[in-house]
């Protein structure tokens, strides 16, 4: 492997020289950190690794996922500690899919000042401000679809001047949508009933008793849907 050039970065104030091709996460490990918090999937899908950073000489704080951002020379960084928002405790089985349900648990959404900070930081490029607006209007479907890609990394809440934990609003809307507004699959219900009624029992019992050779024959001669 060709020797890679090293760059200086600052992890919580301390300077380390790391290869420039690494992500923030791998650079921290290269520097000697054995990560405990702030590391899950390592592929940008679990939201465990929110990180704040700044490039030397620039005043602007940037945020992102440590497993998805490459280090830059002069980067000052820290992992964002555990973020403890208040989560509504609800019974999804008797919550109507309406604005009032969301308002009951997250009244702070009405304090949104439309600053758009949340949208700007979202690593999933979600229009976060918009899904909060949908929630306010009681557009459950709008909020559910707009927030669907949310990986609950907490960065939006971290930036919100109105102290909203947007991702908790999003999941409530999605669950209401999935449960009450998305039409049910009737064939699925029918299959559940058929199984309960024992419709497939004989066939299954027969298959369970076959020896490997017979099973093998069945398997290789089964028809495959196009």
């Amino acid at each position, binding site marked *: *492997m060709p020797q*890679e050039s090293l760059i200086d970065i600052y992890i919580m104030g301390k300077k380390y020289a790391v*290869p420039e*091709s690494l992500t923030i996460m*791998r650079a921290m*490990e*290269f520097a*000697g*950190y*054995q*990560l*405990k*918090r702030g*590391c*899950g*999937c*390592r*592929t*940008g*899908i*679990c939201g*465990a690794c929110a990180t704040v950073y700044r490039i030397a000489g620039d005043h602007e704080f940037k945020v992102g996922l440590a497993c998805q951002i490459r280090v830059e020379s002069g980067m000052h960084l820290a992992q964002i500690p555990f973020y403890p928002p208040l*989560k509504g*405790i*609800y*019974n*999804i089985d008797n919550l109507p899919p309406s604005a009032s349900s969301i308002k009951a648990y997250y009244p702070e959404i009405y304090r949104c000042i439309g600053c758009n900070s949340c949208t700007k930081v979202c690593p*999933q*490029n979600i229009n976060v401000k918009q899904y909060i607006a949908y929630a306010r209007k009681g557009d459950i479907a709008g909020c559910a679809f707009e927030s*669907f*890609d949310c*990986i609950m990394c907490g960065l939006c809440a971290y930036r919100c001047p109105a102290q909203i934990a947007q991702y908790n609003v999003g*999941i409530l809307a*999605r*669950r209401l949508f*999935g*449960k009450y507004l*998305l*039409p*049910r*699959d*009737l*064939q*699925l219900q029918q*299959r*559940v009933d058929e*199984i309960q009624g024992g419709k*497939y029992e004989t*066939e*299954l019992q027969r*298959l*369970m008793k076959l020896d490997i050779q017979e*099973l*093998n024959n069945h*398997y*290789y001669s*089964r*028809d*495959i*849907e196009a």
Partner: protein
Amino acid sequence: MYTSQMKELIKKVEETRPMRLGVDFPRITTEEGQDLLKKFHPDFIEEGFRELQVGVNKGDRVPRELADLLEARSMIEHIELDLSEIVCDVDVLIIGGGGAGAAAALMAQEQGADVALVTKLRFGDANTMMAQGGIQAADKTNDSPAIHYLDVMGGGHFANIPELVYALVNDAPKIIKWLEDIGIMFDKEEDGTMITFHGGGTSRRRMHSARDYTGVEIMRTLRDETINKGIKILEYCPAVELLLDEEGKAAGAILYNLETEEYLVARAKTVILSTGGSGRLHFQGFPTTNHYGATADGLVMGYRAGARMAFMDAIQYHPTGVAYPSEILGMLVTEKFRGLGAKLVNINGKQFVYHLETRDLQSAAIIRECSERKLGIATPTGTVGIWLDSPLIDLIHGEGTIEKRFPAIIRQFKRFGLDIRREPILIYPTLHYQNGGLLLDDNGRTNIENLYVAGENSGGVHGRNRLMGNSLLDILVFGCRTGSHAAQKCQEVKLKKLTLNHVHNYHCQLENNGIDTGGRISPLLLPNYTHREVPEMQTFCGSSKDFGQNGMYLA
């Protein structure tokens, strides 16, 4: 960004693309398949395995890296512990906060049990969160649990335990229904009909999904529900050893607070292990798709306590792991790409294997193409791969299909300047799933009384090879079954004195068998990636040892 050399090679893929449209490559016959596996599948590389010298599976062959952890000393050997100082005292203790653990917790609580769920990282930092493809269930009119049964058995090379497969396929529609009830946003037609796909080894389209966020959607919703139900949750607090009672029945666990480094005693009437897989052990130097905490802890704890393992020599390598760019090396490219018609082609733009073969056969075929046949595509970092012709999907199903079906993965590649809607993806097999684990019965019981197991750390359901979409199903079917049964069992359990004698006995066995544990302690808990050096290249690749493949771990 692909290099100019790679872009040049992509032209060949584009040239031959129209010829692949609507033409199916011949399927591999049973005999050919056996031969292919023997020569090229990592499970048949003898150096990758060794026989266990102690414990209930003595004499069985398991991956070396796992054997090293099983034949190691306990992390708590030299720790002073007062077992009467109990900090967590519940009916059911669930170890591992992934999908199996969450489902078990919900069902156990529904049965009236007092439940605690302890987990190593954040609740939901788990393989479940990473599943992109989907979940199987035979709910369509042209399908049935019996047809599903046959697919599962064939996929597992008929080694699966029939009663477990019966439970899996029979409960499947009920589980999908349950997911609808808790508010999962499945992909559906306007009238509510589930949109379903093929996966490798399926004979019917029965893969249900929530775009390519299926695991995320299931995990975040189960987590939300578990919190709503007031179940006790302890994060960053892995279990490091099981506790047994004086009669040798499971009765709790020693927990370890990762931050304060304190050890805590948890007592329970029944214990469920749901710690997931072992990809982070990097068997044979392969990169992995698994999350950071997939270190086989459940196997280690269970085995020390005397629980039996099954099929731990059958490891699943997913044929399509990312081979380029190196930042996401090993990351999964879901099988749904092939389900929708994307095919595998070599450096000459030629297809070499039917795109819907089972995973083991496809992985072996890719390794053969790159090693023996030397028709792989080399990358600038020294790895090699095969093209997964993703743009074919839009050609088959219409412009915009990839965009609609794979938003998450498009984004993951876009971050590194690749557009998988227009350019093929370079892939190579990646360590994906442990087909085996602690042996369970259809209620999740192990051979140790009051010790249950559910999810990827269990073994038997999938035989020697799991099909895509059957693991999410497995963790929910057996998570639920196990949770219910463990809760009911509590009513007849009498609390007795807690002991760690089994750990002491295990150490004696190691000594009596003259095993040099070389300073190894286990469970591993967290992989060690604090290498100063970028890890060495590893050589593997089928039986052709002269061909180097970069097995750089980190991704």
